[in-house]
């Protein structure tokens, strides 16, 4: 079962069962929709930005355990952070799930639970969908993203 636990850690299963910030923030002023056409996952990320800070964040949508837990843990990780701080976290997260040498999961706190994803290349898109969607929401440009 160790392989299973590497990928499906208890914290991931918990956030899949009970996603945090699975809400529509009342004062959201930035939003984007992300699709993973490969598996049909769809997620909407809604953000209330105030002075370059993510004041509140919520998400909606349906998908696999990895994508749902990733979205849930992402909202916890970036809430109260500046846009630049969120980008740095995303870069670290992306390096970790894609298996980039020198990635430092321990610097990512709870997000380190996704370190096992790099062993499953087909699932990297599941783990990173919410992050790509957040990036689309808080930066200029298209508000629809696709992992394909």
């Amino acid at each position, binding site marked *: 079962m160790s392989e299973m636990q590497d990928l499906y850690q208890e914290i991931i*299963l918990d956030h899949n069962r009970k996603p945090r910030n699975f809400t529509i923030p009342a004062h959201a002023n930035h939003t984007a929709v992300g699709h993973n056409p490969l*598996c*049909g996952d769809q997620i909407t990320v809604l953000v209330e930005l105030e002075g370059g800070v993510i004041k509140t964040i919520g998400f909606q949508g349906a998908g*696999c355990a990895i994508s749902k837990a990733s979205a849930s843990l992402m909202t916890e990780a970036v809430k109260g952070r500046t846009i630049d701080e969120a980008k740095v976290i995303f870069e670290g997260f992306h390096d970790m799930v894609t298996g980039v040498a020198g990635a430092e999961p321990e610097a990512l706190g709870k997000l380190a639970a996704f370190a096992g994803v790099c062993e499953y290349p087909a*699932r990297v898109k599941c783990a990173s969908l919410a992050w790509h969607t957040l990036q689309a929401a808080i930066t200029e440009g298209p508000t629809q993203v696709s992992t394909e």
Partner: protein
Amino acid sequence: MTERAQPPETAADLRADMLRLREEFPALHQRVRGRPLVYLDNAATTHKPRVVLEAMTRFYAEDNSNIHRGVHALSVRATEAYEQARSTVARFLNAPSASEIVFLRGTTEAINLIAHGLAHCRLRPGDEVLITHMEHHSNIVPWQMACNQSGATLKVVPITDNGELEPGAVERMITDRTRVVSVVHVSNSLGTVNPVREICALAHRVGAVVVVDGAQAVAHMAVDVQEIGCDAYAFSGHKLMGPTGVGTLWARQELLAELPPYQGGGDMIEVVTFEKTTYAKAPAKFEAGTPNISGAVGLGAAVFYIEQVGLDRIHAYETWLLERATEQMQAIPGLRLIGTAPGKAAILAFTLDTAHPHDIGTILDMEGVAIRTGHHCTQPVMVRMGVPATARASLSLYNTPEEIDTLCRAVNKVKEVFQ
């Protein structure tokens, strides 16, 4: 291989026989993530028996040359091998003539060729093209393109909750404006076997052309295009234990003569001048450029292999395996089978109430079990069945009841993780 010619009578005999055949597929005998591979993704592609691999290696090692118009010995041998494959496929489908067999990249290219051609020579504004709700995207999108180009209208036969065509709907939806009916023989996401013979009879009353997508049928049941009565039939080599990148369009001579060329180039012409080009007759008209010669040779070997095993016996064995698997899977609480039409092919699509198909697929992979997850290029079927995706186990002649046991054990592990 001749001792296989007589069908054994019991499931035990069949089982023993198929277990021996399994030895002939090198890729099946490996470990994945430390466990013996259980390959249940045969609707996506099948593994290849040694005879197919050897035929292709032999072609490259001994006969490799470009075909047609060559005067040297290797070119003559390569041409013979290529044309022999065409004859083998014609016999396999009981096509009236080998000249009606066009080698292409696969089913997708075959349907594109015919849809593109019919948009030019048959379809006019107000005409209708009839497909079904269970089509693969490759039998939807080319017809949408053909309709957009010609002004024809695409109509879709609805399906029932268990994944059959709605009774009476084909007859009701065929009108005197119907020019084409294009239907899948066996659904890749539901396993449903469609009544193609009856559909042909209904369509021909109004003079419509019937195209059958046979990608999921040919490796699992005997197909006789004359008995079906269709006008065109397409399949891919790689789902039939042959190589990827080669497939077949069979179409009636008259239809091939009427269709314009799909691509221009070498080998598809009679005379070329800068003022005017006259085209070769079918099948050359549709085989511009150097074709997939080794692929056709491999496909011919695969067809020969399947014929030797016997499609009636393959069908009997897979049906037996499917019944067992269905029973075992239905006993798993929270598992829903998607596609339960009577007489369906050996495809088991399912969902679990607690786990997303993608997570099912990953955990099964950890157990060495290869299945496919997602929409299976049939997004309208997913919407119709009210699921985002399914997990799909699809069987072949080399699968065993023990592998079904492993599948079910692995599904139960998924349930443990996602309690």
